[in-house]
């Protein structure tokens, strides 16, 4: 393949884009700008998935995260009407920051340990889905077949999980929605 030599360059491009935009999500003070940066993160992650030969995951990433989660995030920002710096002006509790530091440190250690033990991946048992199989049959067919045979029970359980989630949404909304909408109706700002 003529284009294979580009692969590492593409990886570094997408990886730096992902990390850079993810950093921007945290740094930028305006919530909507952070949301825009989050979209960029999702898209560049999708690029990395494509480089890993798993187009289906890339498309799922765009479909679910950029399509649904982003809209949800934006609606939440609208709902709470977060202005630029609205979150910054609140004084952060000291215990909260200590806990945050501890947890991010633990996460960092986890990541480092994965990198250190990275060569163990070579010895891990290999499944049916190998690079050769993807080349011959396409990752999409393999993914669908695996979903329907090996992972049938999880697949069915997911539908149950989704139903539970719908019930959760309905119950949760019932709690806030009544108070919120009545308040808004009284203020005359219901839109």
């Amino acid at each position, binding site marked *: 393949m003529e284009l294979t030599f580009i692969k590492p360059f593409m990886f570094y491009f997408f990886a730096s884009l992902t990390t850079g935009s993810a950093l921007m999500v945290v740094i930028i003070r305006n919530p909507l700008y952070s949301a825009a940066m989050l979209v960029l993160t999702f898209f560049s992650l999708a690029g990395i998935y494509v480089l890993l030969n798993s187009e289906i995951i890339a*498309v799922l990433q765009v479909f679910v995260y950029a399509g649904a989660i982003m809209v949800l995030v934006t609606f939440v920002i609208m709902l709470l009407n977060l202005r630029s710096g609205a979150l910054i002006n609140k004084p952060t509790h000291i215990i909260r920051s200590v806990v945050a530091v501890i947890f991010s440190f633990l996460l960092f250690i986890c990541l480092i340990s994965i990198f250190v033990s990275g060569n163990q991946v070579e010895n891990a048992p290999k499944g049916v889905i190998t690079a050769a199989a993807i080349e011959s049959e396409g990752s999409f*067919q393999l993914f669908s077949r695996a979903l329907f045979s090996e992972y049938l029970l999880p697949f069915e359980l997911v539908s149950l999980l989704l139903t539970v989630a719908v019930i959760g949404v309905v119950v949760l909304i019932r709690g806030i929605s009544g108070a919120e909408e009545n308040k808004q109706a009284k203020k005359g700002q219901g839109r």
Partner: protein
Amino acid sequence: MTQFIYMFIFAVIYLLSIAVAAGFLTVVERRIAGRMQSRIGPNRVGPQGIVQWIADAVKALQKEDIIPTDAHSFLFKIAPYLVFMGVFLTLVPIPFGAYTLMENLDTGIFYVLAMASFVVIGVMMGGWASNNKWSLLGGMRSAAQMISYEVPAALAVFVVVVMAGTLNFQKIVFSQGASPVDWYVFRNPFAFIAFNIFFIAALAEGNRVPFDIPEAESELVSGYNTEYSGMRFLFFFLAEWGNLVVIGALVSTLFFGGWNFWFEYTLEFSVPGRYPIRFEVLGFLWFLFKVSIFVFIIIWIRWTLPRLRIDQLMDICWKYMVPIGLFASIGILLWMYFVPEKSLADTIMRYSMTSFGGLTILYFFYRVFQNLRVTKAKIYANPFV
């Protein structure tokens, strides 16, 4: 490297053709609208006004670019990019002919559904960043509408995917045939239901009347693009009319046999550094004909139906189209199980549905001509008046 150069050339051709098609369609739509409202429409620039769109583009190019004070200028500027990209990227896997296809993506229709999210995000950002109440309302409504109608559209796609056994557009086209009997619309009743759902949902995703709540002129000025002017505004326009082509192409690929034609006539161009470029003319023209019929129907609907209210819109989506879509997807699973392909029942159903569809169209024309006879109206068949 030569491969890349050819890919680049093809991509540029795609870009130019979608821009020209979108521009041309704006003129066509205005001419049709004129006729439907007993007026003439633009007919001054070029023969019968067909290059009106170039004049419009040149005019927009010279217009001052206004960004309102307190608007978030970065988000305001990137919104047209996202919207245009969302429409342009959907063209990658759509086959316009046997060989006229950018890349044969395995994720096909799934990829197209995913790319719709670009448009949603772009519209939402444009609406939010403008610091205008109309824009904000339009953008939010638009996002709510587009995400809602993605569910019935995907359920309709599910029906096609079950019948074709693949998501790949080219394989979906191959599994249909040239004659109407082999088209997916007339295969079984559930596919016909799915076609209707998909078409309506595609109208809603493209923000077309009767689902044009996001840019309802009479209540929201112009919706999410109220504050946009000049070229930036033009790109929203380009995306909207490019979307018409995409909708037409999707509907005819998924349900109406795509580029399948009875005969084929292939041109071959030998080029340096690559196997010859093939271009199948008849199938391509046949496909364009199907696409233009659907585009005409969409324009026709726009100038015929009134706009829906937002609560009616949401009710139609969640209380009618989603349940009907679920019904169709359950039905198609059962149908595929109990009626195997090429069995007697399958053949009878195909032929009866095709004849029913043909008769419906004939009856429509019969009624039209009868009405014309009764009202003694004159027909102006010549479009170049």
